[in-house]
């Protein structure tokens, strides 16, 4: 009986509605948690797998030796490699294409690479304007690598102690 009366009073004094309003009014003055994306960014793990890049050795020689391990391990068949012998007798790629529509960003290529040539950078905000734009070739990959070499090596360094 007492419980019933209590419920009646609570119902008619809009008790539950008042609780709801109290919650929202508390949040109203709380600190906002929005991250203003282009200006602010959330922290990224050194293991983050984003856009691919091909790295070079410090002397400017490209690392990739066209062993095709990445092509073999790729579960989505996103990598296409063609190779030829260069004048100095080393084997190098003539074609290294990654189809970003196929790629599932698993990072297996990076794991498989014996010379740390193919890596995944922390770049995730990229776009292309045509369907063909999804395929990035060797030149573009090397360019991405050259541009972000310092960030890539720093991330690798940070992650190396856990490997």
């Amino acid at each position, binding site marked *: 009986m007492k419980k019933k009366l209590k419920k009646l009073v609570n119902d008619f004094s809009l008790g539950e*509605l008042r609780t709801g*309003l109290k919650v*929202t*009014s508390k*949040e*109203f003055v*709380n600190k*906002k948690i*929005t991250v203003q994306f282009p200006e602010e960014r959330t922290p990224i793990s050194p293991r983050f797998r984003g856009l691919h890049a091909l790295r070079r050795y410090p002397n400017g020689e490209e690392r990739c030796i066209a062993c095709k391990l990445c092509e073999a391990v790729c579960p989505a068949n996103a990598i296409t490699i063609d190779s030829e012998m260069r004048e100095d007798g080393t084997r190098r790629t003539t074609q290294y294409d990654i189809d970003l529509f196929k790629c599932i960003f698993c990072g297996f290529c990076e794991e498989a690479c014996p010379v740390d040539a193919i890596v995944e950078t922390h770049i995730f905000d990229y776009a292309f304007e045509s369907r063909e734009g999804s395929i990035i070739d060797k030149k573009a990959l090397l360019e991405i690598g050259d541009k972000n070499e310092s960030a890539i090596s720093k991330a690798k360094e940070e992650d190396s102690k856990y490997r």
Partner: protein
Amino acid sequence: MWQSFVDLTHQLIPWFNGSLADILIIVIKGLALIFPLIIMMAYMTYAERKVIGFMQLRIGPNRVGPFGLLQPFADVFKMLFKEVIFPSKSNIYLFLLAPILAFVPAVAVWAVVPLGEDFYIANIDVSLLYVMAIGSVGVYGIVLAGWASNSKYPLLGALRSTALLISYELVIGFVLVTVVMVASSVNLNTVVESQSGGILNWYWIPLFPMMIVFWIGALVETNRAPFDVVEGESEIVGGTHVEYSGMPFALFFMAEYFNMIFMAMLAVLMFFGGWHSPFEGIPFLEGLFGFVPDLIWLLIKMSFFLFLYFWIRASFPRFRYDQIMRLCWKVFLPLTIVWIFVVALMTQLGIGPWF
């Protein structure tokens, strides 16, 4: 206030009199009311997004102008340049008539609103009846929109809105009857004047339950959350708005916001002493706040109710349709009828805080 303005125009332009002058002055009065209203409505959308954003731990629009203050204008220009699409099997005349029918009553009710002491466009003796009558016409806009769209979701929205508004108009009508009995007048000016004398003389204290019922009714009448089943994005996409785009849609949008402002205004006029200062009759504070114009008091009180709209929208989930109906017919209606008897008895026998 108006009179001085009219006298001034007569002085400035001596030949400016006669019927032409009267018509022109009426037009100027109308525009002087509608333009601030449109600006207010535009910034209400901004305030709504900000307030709801803040309550959801977001920060709301902040890209256009400082603090996103130009956002409403960006929205307006976007609306203006959008293509108006007509459903191929719809009746184009009804389709275009609907937003007009929704918008015009929303503006027309403002003619009788007392914005301050002797500051109104029209002071008619039955202004409350006028408000109720014109306010009901707005439903036709929504119903017609649902019918003319010739599509299933708009029709569902229209049906819901008809049943909803008819039911809740009853409740609001009864609530207003109690106020009318207490104030013994149907003139909004008189109702406000009878609440003079500080915050304790306003009707929200003696008629507190009625105020709550009125406010919930106002939420339903303006199709706002948590009673926005007419739009009901998650159930019927956008209700009556589904087929509308561009300016016709903007008209619906504006009508909704005008109605919101008006309902907030009506709540203030009926229960919160209209343009009266809350400090009237309090010795020290009355003098301290004496410089504040009565229009400002009105706007402050009104803003609180508009904030309440957003606050409630951010807090509660949408009601199920049958729950709204049950609330109306099984709770509010008996409650208001009983309260009418109570108020009638008390006014007749001279008991209570009113005379």
